[in-house]
């Protein structure tokens, strides 16, 4: 039996993409989720809907608009190309931007839920003990929201690994640059190399399953925090 040769590069790019995307998303999603959890502003529902949009939109729609906006003549792609001389579309940076938007709800929503259940009282208490808002966030809110953060990280990571449509639209299929694992599977199937497709697919399946089992078991073990 021949052992099929697996190209490891798409796996590596996928992991890099997911790590960078989740890292940036944690920084961006924290203030958005905090604002959503505590604001009384009427614009809240609009922001909530915008954040949830990638959940219901076909990835191709999101990819299509991103292609236009990030392209050499787009609002963002144009100035960036003029400045750096390289295009955002069909590049790793473009993939990161697309992934951030695509995975946004998977990071914002668990954090939103966590902040909402923590409420304002721990922050107020920490401030009454001399902590500034930022200090109070890192010393009290963050540890109390750790279940939310864990869920956000895992869902964001796994969802970015699994994306296909947006990546294909914005990133294309450039080996070693923008070709990620899901596209590699598609390519193998196209050329009828089912063995390689099997290995990659099963790998992704097992990985996702193991990660989710880990998250749920860790989440069960972290005590529910009651103030």
């Amino acid at each position, binding site marked *: 039996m021949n052992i099929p040769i697996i190209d490891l590069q798409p796996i590596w790019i996928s992991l890099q993409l997911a790590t960078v995307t989740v890292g940036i998303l944690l920084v961006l999603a924290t203030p958005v989720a905090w604002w959503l959890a505590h604001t009384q502003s009427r614009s809240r529902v609009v922001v909530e809907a915008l954040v949830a949009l990638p959940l219901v939109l076909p990835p191709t729609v999101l990819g299509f608009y991103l292609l236009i906006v990030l392209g050499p003549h787009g609002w963002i792609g144009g100035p960036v190309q003029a400045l750096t001389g390289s295009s955002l579309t069909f590049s790793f940076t473009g993939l990161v931007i697309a992934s951030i938007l695509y995975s946004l709800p998977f990071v914002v929503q668990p954090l939103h839920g966590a902040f909402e259940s923590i409420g304002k*009282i*721990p922050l*107020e*208490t*920490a*401030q*009454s*003990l*001399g*902590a*500034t808002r930022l*200090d109070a966030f890192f*010393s*009290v809110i963050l*540890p*109390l929201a750790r279940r939310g953060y864990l869920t956000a990280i895992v869902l964001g990571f796994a969802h970015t690994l699994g994306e296909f449509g947006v990546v294909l639209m914005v990133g294309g299929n450039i080996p070693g640059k923008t070709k990620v694992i899901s596209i590699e599977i598609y390519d193998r199937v196209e050329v009828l190399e089912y063995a390689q497709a099997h290995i990659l697919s099963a790998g992704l399946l097992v990985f996702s399953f193991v990660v989710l089992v880990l998250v749920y078991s860790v989440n069960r073990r972290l*005590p529910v*925090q*009651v*103030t």
Partner: protein
Amino acid sequence: MTHSIDVKLNMDYPGFNLDVELSLPGKGVTVVFGPSGSGKTTFLRCLAGLERATSGYLKWADQIWQDEEIFIPIHQRKVGLVFQESRLFPHLSIQENLLYGYHRTVERNLHLDEVAQVLGLEALLQRYPDKLSGGERQRVAIGRALLTSPKLLLMDEPLASLDMQRKAEIIPFIKRIEDEFKTPIIYVTHSMNEVLQLVDTMVILKAGRLVNSGPVGKVFSDVRLKEVMGPDQLGAVLETSVVAHDAEFGLTQLDFMGQTLNVPQQNITVGKELRVHIHSKDVSLSTAPPAGATSVLNILQAKVKKIGTLDPKGYSVDIELDAGHTLLATITRKSLSNLDLKPGQLVYAHIKAIKMVHSQHEAELD
């Protein structure tokens, strides 16, 4: 050195307006009392800097906390806050909870060892909040606030969520804070009974307005308190001292302005002070000393100071007496007419029940 706290607050909410102006002493225990909706919690939150009054002026010693331009935020006011719920941080041990504010305090006058000792927390330090009883958690919350070496300790109904037994357990600790650390306390409550033994200064609020404020003895001599506390709670608070114990009859004799009061035997050293509350409904009057024997043990001589307004629809009237300190009596209008009382007249006040403030215990003595 003690400083006063000048407070002037005006704050509008839909259907509610808080408008008070007063000066609080920067020492001892000040109790802000009022029924729900009186604005007492808002008052405290404004003092703490958790809320900003629409217009207001707050000054502690020579530091302005709020005026038209200045608003010092809570973490710079150096006040300690204790709420109804302990609000301990569940992810931190008791020791870490206690030290949370301590580590963020520059000028530390109080330290972990002494605070843990005074509040009886030594055995709890390594535990976590969810392993503590409600009373223990509240003691930790008080300790945590104290370890920021606050200039002022603000307490918002700190005992309201505890049962009677736990309340009685914590009150001595609050008293010790005042004795040991000299930290002035402002204590908001809707239940006067729980703090009567602690209070030095009273502030009474009703519907966002100041009803009365001043030393506890003076405020409790005010018949207007009836509107706020209910007719059953009206009555003078007297400072007495223990003169002797009468083991044979199981009584303790108290000196009150040269006259004697008998109460059930108390476990208090002779010479010590004891605060008592005599409800006006438990005081009846006669114009002459009892002719024959009487079962009433406590009869004080007093002068009629002021006869309360007669409500033609009601049956009773409140009488202010002067027995060296104001004493209040509530009698029927018919009795007033029978006795034909006039201000300045000498009367005998028959006291049917005395409440010993320290034990929450009321004794009928007949």
